[in-house]
């Protein structure tokens, strides 16, 4: 540190000299340019434009700034500021890095939790719990990233696009769960079928035709499906999947509407409004037609 202070002090005599040289340079530059006062209206009429005007102003500003800075008080303050500059930059950098590290560690921490949430479910008992866990993880840990507030002119477009992605993800997770439920009877029917075959083999009644085996299996499968379809779990999954699909379709339509607005294509919303008006008008015309006919 003492060495650094010495270096700063060594720079002290250089700074006032640089300021003086700077002032002289801007003064000469200003003098070199023909001024309005010197050449009067003639020059102004010939060369006056926005660029020249701005240039003159800049030179004047730099000249006055250099003059002010050449004063001893200002020079001393500037030297002082230069000496503390590295410290300020270091502080700024430190706080910036700290914020960055905090955000990163927060994200990493959240991502680390993704797997942990699944522990609450007993995967051994019901396989579809895996899908529910995935849905839960998505809803609680990932979904929020699609709802980070957007800013600026395009915020609404971005929001609708993000919502579409979110609804798509939700639909896919529920669809996966639904398909897993639909697949369950197939899996179970094979197990039962194997047991039946085992029983029949022990009794010596094993079907000799492949067709008979198939008929047995399909009958078991049908029975399993009928039991499944009557269950509340299935009905709930069906409705949930349907609702998520509807949400996705609606969000997709909203996002598409933004794109269509840039093209010379009417949006579904606009067409629906038109259809409604058209429908009501047509109905009125038909009623009036009937009244006229009856008269």
């Amino acid at each position, binding site marked *: 540190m003492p060495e650094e202070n010495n270096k700063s002090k060594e720079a002290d005599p250089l700074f006032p000299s640089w300021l003086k040289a700077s002032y002289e340079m801007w003064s000469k530059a200003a003098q070199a340019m023909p001024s309005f006062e010197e050449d009067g209206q003639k020059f102004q009429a010939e060369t006056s434009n926005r660029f020249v005007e701005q240039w003159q102003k800049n030179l004047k500003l730099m000249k006055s700034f250099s003059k002010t800075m050449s004063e001893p008080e200002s020079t001393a303050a500037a030297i002082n500021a230069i000496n503390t500059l590295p410290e300020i930059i270091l502080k700024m950098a430190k706080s910036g890095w700290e914020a960055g590290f905090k955000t990163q560690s927060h994200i990493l921490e959240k991502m680390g939790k993704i797997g942990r949430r699944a522990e609450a479910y007993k995967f051994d008992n019901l396989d579809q719990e895996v899908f529910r866990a995935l849905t839960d993880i998505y809803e609680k840990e990932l979904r929020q990233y699609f709802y980070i507030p957007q800013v600026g002119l395009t915020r609404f477009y971005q929001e609708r696009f993000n919502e579409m992605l979110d609804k798509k993800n939700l639909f896919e997770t529920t669809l996966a769960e639904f398909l897993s439920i639909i697949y369950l009877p197939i899996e179970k029917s094979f197990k039962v079928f194997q047991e039946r075959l085992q029983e029949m083999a022990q*009794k010596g009644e*094993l079907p000799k*035709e492949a067709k008979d085996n198939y*008929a047995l299996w399909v009958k078991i499968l*049908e029975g399993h499906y009928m039991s499944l379809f009557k269950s509340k779990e299935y009905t709930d999954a069906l*409705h949930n999947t*349907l609702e998520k699909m509807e*949400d996705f379709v609606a969000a997709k*339509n909203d996002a598409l509407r933004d794109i269509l607005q840039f093209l010379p294509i009417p949006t579904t919303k606009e067409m629906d409004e038109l259809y409604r008006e058209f429908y009501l008008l047509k109905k009125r015309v*038909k009623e009036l037609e009937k009244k006229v006919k009856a008269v």
Partner: protein
Amino acid sequence: MAQTKIPVDLILEKLAQSAEETQKRVSRASDILLSPLNTEAAVTPYDIVYSEDRIKLKHYTRSETAENKLKTPLLVIYALINRETMLDLQPDRSVVQTFLKSGIDLYMMDWGYPTRKDRYVTIDDHVNGYINNAVDYIREKNGIQKVNLMGICIGGSMCAMYSALHPDKIKNLITTVTPSNFDTDKGLLHVWMKNLNVDKMINSFGNIPGDLMNFGFLLLNPARLMIDKYVGFTENMDNKDFVENFMRMERWIFDSPDVPGETFRQLIEDCYKRNLLIQNKMYLDGKRVDLKKLTMPLLNFYGRFDHLVPPEAADKLTSVVGSKDVEDVCIDTGHIGIYVSSKAQKQFAPKIVRWLRERDKEDAPRQKAQTKRKSEVELQKPAVESRAPEPQNIQQPSLAETGTKTGRPKSPRSSRSLLIQKITEAI
């Protein structure tokens, strides 16, 4: 030496035999599938005599040689799901052709394919708009006061609504696989619809996509409709007739127009969720649908194995109407089998012709004794059933199982027709 419990030698022998047969079948099938196939449905000629928006009124030309032509024309109203071509699916199983040969002057409503612009069309627009206009057209054209009306599935429900609101225009009413009591948990559709968020669905889709509904119908019995059906097809794909009929059916099943959003909303809210129709609490354009005003003769068909409109959903209608001339007919088949199965061909359309003929004479006295309720009719076999009855598929066993249970080898033709029948029953 003790006999082995697992006849491995026999099983292997059968497997080898089966592989050889499959190879031959695939070879024959490739010839058939690559050759021109006649899979056109609804080939009976007709004229479009009236059209409005997307709907068309078909008029079929009845056979000139038909004896005892019926005086009163019959208007058939199909459901809003799938298409009316089902009644004329193939020449030897065509309700349309049976009607025409029997002297019925037949009109049929083609609902067309609703587009987005139809999303605000309501049940009232269908009933008091399109159906009413079609009925008026037929009345005017024929110079008559009343027409005969026949409805299929939801089309039947709409016919019941129409007849209750315009009893002066309907001579006889026939409802087939028609839901009137929606408060039942016997059919999966009824269970699933109870908690459906219909508003959200319509906001998202506008109209309800036909493919989405078809997917729902496939889920009612995936083992039969998504697996067994196609296994059956591969087993019979070397038979041209079978392939053509199968393809007709396949095309019909997936030819599913969208359902207008507002119509679907009212159907779910007023019927499936609140069951208003059977309680006489349903309103169309501010007018109450009072089933007591159904004072015309009523013939009500339903399928014993119908899982879309189970008997519990269909058999209450005759007990709540004002008419004394009512009859329930329960056929041992499914929702579509009632129209296209070989068994139903002998029971369904001929029964309607007889019933209408009995009531065609305007001066014919109303016979109080004709009042038949469900219990009586189910026990009473129609005249056509004096023939050898076909096996009843109460448990709906698979094709292979049915073939072995009888203890006698089934001919390929009988098993093929049985497969088609099973497909129709599974729908």
